[in-house]
């Protein structure tokens, strides 16, 4: 009685050492993701998706418990060495499948889902180790998006605090993200003819390609860009579709240095002297080139060629050599959007956060999955001691599917006339003692 109680507690200990320890570690790792995806908002902005990883883990654990329960019950009822060994094997295999195996499968099937959700901009390999940073980036993006759109009044400034605290849970915020992405996706990314946008993205952005991107005919924008009154739009057309420039796809300011000496030669000195005061050392109060670009856009608006303004800013880098830095500034910030890539992530917010939340499991399951296998093995051994008891050895346990063959030497010594013992009689007390005598004989014989 005392011994069986000891075994019981030993088994409980083995159970605890397996999945629960792994789970505790995973929960600890997941906390980073949950915390990082929630920075700046008062509640869990990505509820319940940020808990997807933990949910997956609980499901896996329940499956494991189910397998443990079934194998345990079979061993307990049959009380045979054979059932104990098969049960142990099944449990160990299940533990490996449910830890390492699951991740092998996820490693195979998740990458395409992730790629298609993010238009090939986040790759699975980016997340493998860097998931917590990615979660943080996401919360930061959400924060920036809300601030940009409060500033340009696409989100009602009066409700600023509500947006900030509710984050992605807020319907207005969700709707605005969806619509902004649809606009930049349909009316920018998919709007350039043929393979041009891919050429711009790669290492082959040539001047001809840039000219194509600026001036080629494009289909008129068709997705509403709601609640935006900048760029001369009034109340009556504040929801109208909007045109995007190629620079908006990148969001970053493009800057290039222009050397007047190269362009003007000896005349540089005169130009610099005459234009003193027009070029300043900072970006404020510079020559109003943005007006020029706005008029360039106006000029082309009729032809539907270049509809989106690009702002240009200038800064004098070196007065003596006449080097001017020209900055090309996209519309993104004033319109309250990110570049295309980040808008694509943003549009798949829930899915990406859910996928990110699964990643803390990955390394834990790969590395510590072996502990679950070991604890499963320990549980199997304890079960055998508990339910099958002493004197039931492994001998011949796995030799046949229906029964256990009698060892050759037994036959030679005249014991038994049939090669197989029927398995069902395991439960008969009479047969049990009969087979025990054979086992005793075998063990005596081989000593």
């Amino acid at each position, binding site marked *: 009685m005392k011994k069986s109680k000891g075994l019981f507690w030993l088994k409980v200990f083995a159970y605890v050492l397996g999945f629960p320890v792994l789970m505790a570690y995973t929960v600890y790792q997941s906390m980073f993701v949950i915390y990082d995806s929630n920075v700046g908002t008062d509640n869990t902005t990505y509820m319940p998706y940020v808990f997807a990883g933990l949910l997956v883990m609980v499901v896996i654990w329940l499956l494991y418990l189910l397998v443990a329960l079934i194998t345990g019950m079979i061993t307990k009822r049959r009380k045979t060495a054979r059932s104990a060994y098969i049960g142990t094997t099944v449990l160990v295999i299940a533990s490996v499948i449910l830890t390492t195996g699951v991740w092998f499968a996820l490693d195979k099937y998740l990458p395409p889902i992730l790629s298609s959700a993010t238009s090939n901009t986040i790759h699975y390999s980016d997340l493998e180790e860097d998931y917590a940073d990615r979660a943080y980036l996401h919360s930061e993006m959400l924060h920036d998006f809300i601030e940009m759109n409060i500033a340009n009044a696409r989100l009602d400034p009066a409700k600023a605090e509500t947006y900030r605290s509710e984050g992605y849970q807020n319907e207005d915020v969700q709707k605005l993200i969806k619509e902004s992405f649809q606009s930049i996706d349909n009316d920018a990314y998919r709007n350039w003819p043929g393979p041009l946008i891919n*050429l711009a993205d790669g290492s*082959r952005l040539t001047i001809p390609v840039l*000219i194509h991107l600026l001036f080629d005919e494009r289909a008129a924008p068709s997705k509403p860009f709601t609640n935006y009154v900048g760029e001369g739009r009034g109340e009556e057309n504040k929801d109208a579709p909007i045109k995007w420039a190629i620079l908006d796809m990148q969001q970053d300011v493009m800057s290039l240095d222009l050397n007047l000496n190269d362009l003007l030669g000896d005349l540089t000195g005169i130009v610099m002297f*005459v234009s003193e005061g027009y070029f300043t050392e900072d970006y404020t109060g510079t020559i109003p080139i943005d*007006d020029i670009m706005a008029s360039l856009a106006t*000029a082309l608006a009729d032809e539907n060629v270049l509809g989106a303004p690009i702002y240009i800013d200038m800064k004098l880098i070196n007065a003596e050599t006449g080097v001017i830095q020209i900055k090309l500034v996209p519309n993104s910030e004033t319109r309250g959007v990110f570049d295309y890539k980040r808008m694509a992530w943003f549009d798949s917010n829930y899915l990406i956060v859910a996928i990110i939340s699964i990643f803390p499991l990955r390394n834990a399951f790969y590395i510590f999955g072996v502990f679950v296998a070991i604890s499963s093995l320990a549980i199997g051994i304890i079960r055998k001691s508990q339910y099958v008891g002493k004197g039931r050895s492994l001998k011949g346990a796995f030799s046949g599917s229906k029964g256990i063959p009698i060892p050759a*030497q037994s036959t030679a010594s005249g014991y038994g006339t049939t090669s197989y013992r029927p398995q069902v009689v395991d439960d008969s007390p009479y047969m049990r003692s009969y087979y025990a005598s054979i086992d005793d004989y075998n063990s005596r014989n081989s000593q």
Partner: protein
Amino acid sequence: MGNNLNAIKAKLVLWRVLKIAAYAIGFPLLLYLLKKDITNVGVSKNGYNVIYYGFLGVIALQIIVGIFLRRREFYVRALIVVIVASAVVLAPTLYMEFTVKSEFEKLEEEYAERGYSFARYETQVMDFSSRLSSHNSASGTFSNTYNLNGDTGSKKGNNFDNTPTTSDLVSNIYLDGFATMQHYVFGAEEAGGVYSMNGLYADAFVVGVKQARYILEVYHETRAKFAADNLDADAELEKELEKLDEAGSLWKQYQNTAEYKRAYGDAPVLDAPATDESQKIKVGDNYYDPYWMYAPHYYLTADELTAVVDTLLANLLENKRVNDLLKALLAAGDQLGLDAGTIGAISDALENKNLSLENILDIVNSSGLLNPKDENGKPMLDEDGNPIVVTIGINDIMEVIGTLSYYQSPTTYPKMFFIQNKELRTYAYAKYFGTKHGAVLGTVLIGDSVGKVTMDSSGNPPMSYDEITALFNRLDIENEYMPKYYPWLAIRRTLIKYTGFVPLGLILAYLFAFFERKQFSKLTVAGKGGYR
């Protein structure tokens, strides 16, 4: 049963393990090392085949020898198998020494005639690995200089107007040709690639080593050929193109076809994108929206340019600060080399706010700014003693812009298709791909700056044609012999080190098998079994 059964079983297992281990250090390990060596050498298919067939051959040989010798005594069997195995291991080395070596001597002479110094067998046996890496980096040099896409170019290449492309040369999507002219596909046999319906490379097709080589060969060799007759290929090409501008030429006739007008007419067939299928037209096998097939949609036209510049100028004059800057610059006009008349004309335009592109061109033309001057600043005179007058028009500006912004419709033939002189036509195509096509995709092949000429890279200095021919002569020759012989050299290197292990492994394997059998015989009831 006096024997300890478990001890016998343990010994049985021990001999069995030793037998397998001994066998493994023979052929299997050798083949593994050979495969590894050949992988390192990087000579692909041929090398692997040697290993795979070698592996299968060895297994087959072992089975056959085993069947023949099944009734022989154990040690006889072992001896014969070891002899056969040694022969198999030695054979490639012997083959190399007696056959390949003499082939190398022949090749040395043959390649010397082709201007390639082919090293002796003894040298290459030692340094073939470094020769191979040198070969690979040489081939990379060409590719990097011209920013090419692999050996055969990009697999896909779409058109900006989304009309179909193909790499299948018997495809039925090609245009039918015009009048009596046969359809022409540039470099179809020599280089291949992804083509548009008009036989040009598709808009986004980035050429590979094969195409770049062919383009450069055509370009340089045609030039050299004309130069030998004291002619300039470019000038001759210009003459051919001028002929096409004459009334009644095939090109002029072609410009009157519906096919051409659909792409380059005064206006697109449709004013706006097609809204239903019936508006689309059949090209090749499929239906396309003629609105999107209109070529001027894909480049800056003279009208668009004028509109842009005029609005820009109008806006400049509206803005007081810009206006002030221009006036300040104008005040220093004489220092900038402007004469009084020009300064007056610009001042008037600024005052009346009617500065347009046309206006500016007029001012520039009437100022005589572009007229050539001699060293003393005096106007240069022509043969009749009159000053040379140079003027500029919108077409001149469009020509400059045209190198950066142009579009050749993939569903119409280019002008150069109609060039009658076949040699010059091929030359024109090569030049087009080396310059204009390459400039769009960052694979400029012809010019002072080649390869990756993009927004953030100014390209590379070109390789001279002599360098290119020498490089390809070398690569061609090396591609002939390296895949053929280098796997053998790699095999030889490993075999020489390893020959002894194969018979040793086999002898041990037989020995351990003998011991195993002996133990096994103790297990059987009648004590029978074991090797005879």
